[in-house]
């Protein structure tokens, strides 16, 4: 417990916020850097992955690709990706910029699968009848996408961006290992100096930052949920609430099990 009190004292010490002090201080600069790296990476990843995800969701083409790709990317070790990119980028870009360029590329690569999956799953979750009625009143495919599918899938699109953002915030911490700034630099210097207050203080800062950003995106996700849509969750839930996909799977499992049992007879 004493460790945490020490860390809190370190966090509230005005000396750690004085502008122009030795790196990795002052704290507010590292927080700003961390947010900046996160923002840039998520923005680039969104520009790449969201249109692709929407396209796949709208046309239904490449569905297997998204499932396979997101699955495989999950197994990619972030630390290895960072280090490999650092060496590859480092051989072409001046050393001072290598850490930044390599980190942003790695963070963008890591953010893409979640955003892609969010866009795809969002459009796919829209009731086909709603899409068809749009088509029936003479909407073009573009109008269907922009006026029906995107507004209705906004919560899932934001859920994808939210998952990606969390991942980027966490990976940016590790990027301090290739001398990127941000809050990871505080933890790294703490580990180097055997300074427990600094390690713990840095760790608490990152965790709070992740929780705050995640909370903000969670509110945004809630706000974009249209009342009455299939994604809107009622306030009071039944204990045995049936969630969409799971029910389909379980019901199918029942049928298939019945078939199996009968075939055994």
């Amino acid at each position, binding site marked *: 417990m004493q460790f945490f009190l020490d860390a809190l004292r370190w966090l509230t010490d005005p000396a750690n916020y004085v502008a122009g002090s030795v790196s990795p201080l002052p704290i507010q600069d590292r927080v700003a850097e961390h947010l900046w790296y996160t923002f840039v990476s998520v923005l680039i990843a969104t520009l790449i992955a969201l249109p692709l995800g929407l396209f796949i969701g709208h046309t239904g083409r490449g569905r297997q690709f998204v*499932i396979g790709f*997101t*699955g495989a*990317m*999950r*197994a*990619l*070790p*972030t*630390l*290895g990706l*960072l*280090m*490999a990119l*650092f060496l590859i980028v*480092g051989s072409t870009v001046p050393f001072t910029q290598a850490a930044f360029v390599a980190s942003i590329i790695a963070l963008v690569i*890591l953010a893409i699968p*979640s955003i892609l*999956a*969010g866009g*795809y*799953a*969002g459009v*796919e*979750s829209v009731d086909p009848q709603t899409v068809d009625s749009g088509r029936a009143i003479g909407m073009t495919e573009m109008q269907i996408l922009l006026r029906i599918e995107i507004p209705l899938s906004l919560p*899932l699109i934001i859920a*994808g961006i939210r*998952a990606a953002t*969390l*991942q*980027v915030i*966490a990976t940016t*911490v*590790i990027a301090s290992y290739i001398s990127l700034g941000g809050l990871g630099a505080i*933890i790294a210097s703490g*580990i180097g100096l055997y300074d427990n207050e600094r390690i*713990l203080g840095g*760790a*608490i800062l*990152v*965790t709070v930052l*992740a929780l705050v950003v995640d909370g903000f995106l969670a509110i945004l996700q809630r706000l974009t949920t249209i009342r009455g849509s299939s994604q809107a969750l009622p306030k009071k*839930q039944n*204990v*045995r*609430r049936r*969630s*969409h*996909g*799971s029910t389909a*799977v*379980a*019901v199918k*499992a*029942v049928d*298939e*099990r*019945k078939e*199996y*049992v009968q075939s055994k007879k």
Partner: protein
Amino acid sequence: MMKAGLQEFSELTSEDCRMSWLFDNFDLVAELTLNHAALSFTPIFLGFVIALVLGWTANRWLLFRSWIIAGGSILYTIPSLPLFVILPYILGTRITDERNIIVALTIYALAILIRTVAEAFAAVPTDAIEASRAIGYSSWNRFWHVEFPLAGPVLLAGLRVVSASTIALVSVGAIIGSANLGYLFTNGKQRDFLEMILIGIGASFLIALVFDILLVLLGRLLMPWNKRTSLITNGRRILSSKGA
């Protein structure tokens, strides 16, 4: 001039020893791979067992449900490196102790699985449960013979997600001195040795692939009526993955 010369030299040497490094250090890579696999297995297993208990409880008692699921998503938000360095203070372990990594990864596995488990049990058709109650199943038997098998496909899908992300996350532990494939990443970076890192990434993928195949086979063995295990997925499940 000087820089270009050095670069040519380093490219030459790494080109030279690309394959031979793996052969010369095969024992090291094999040992790191095995340790990596062992370090991944425990959190996946523990996380699943604890999530099973908590998720089932959450589904049984409404009061717990929102608390347990909210707790899971808060734990999930904590970035991995900070958790690795905070845990020694809570557990009283040394910072290089591998138990920190196991506990941290169990927490993540639990955080991802808890929601999946609660949803899987919630999706078990009420008819099936009522039927089992009507023919006199005790709640223990009902769990093992009705709820668990019917929730099986969703549980398996969740386990596969957790398996892949846990194996990927173990390597972060190398920063605090754990001997797993992550060592090839940190050491390869220090020695400016790209092939070493790529071999590490490849080996990590290999473990993930083997674990995934084993899980699918286990699913086929335990749930022979469920033919299409590999296709089970939905939007939310695609989204849940823990990066770093």
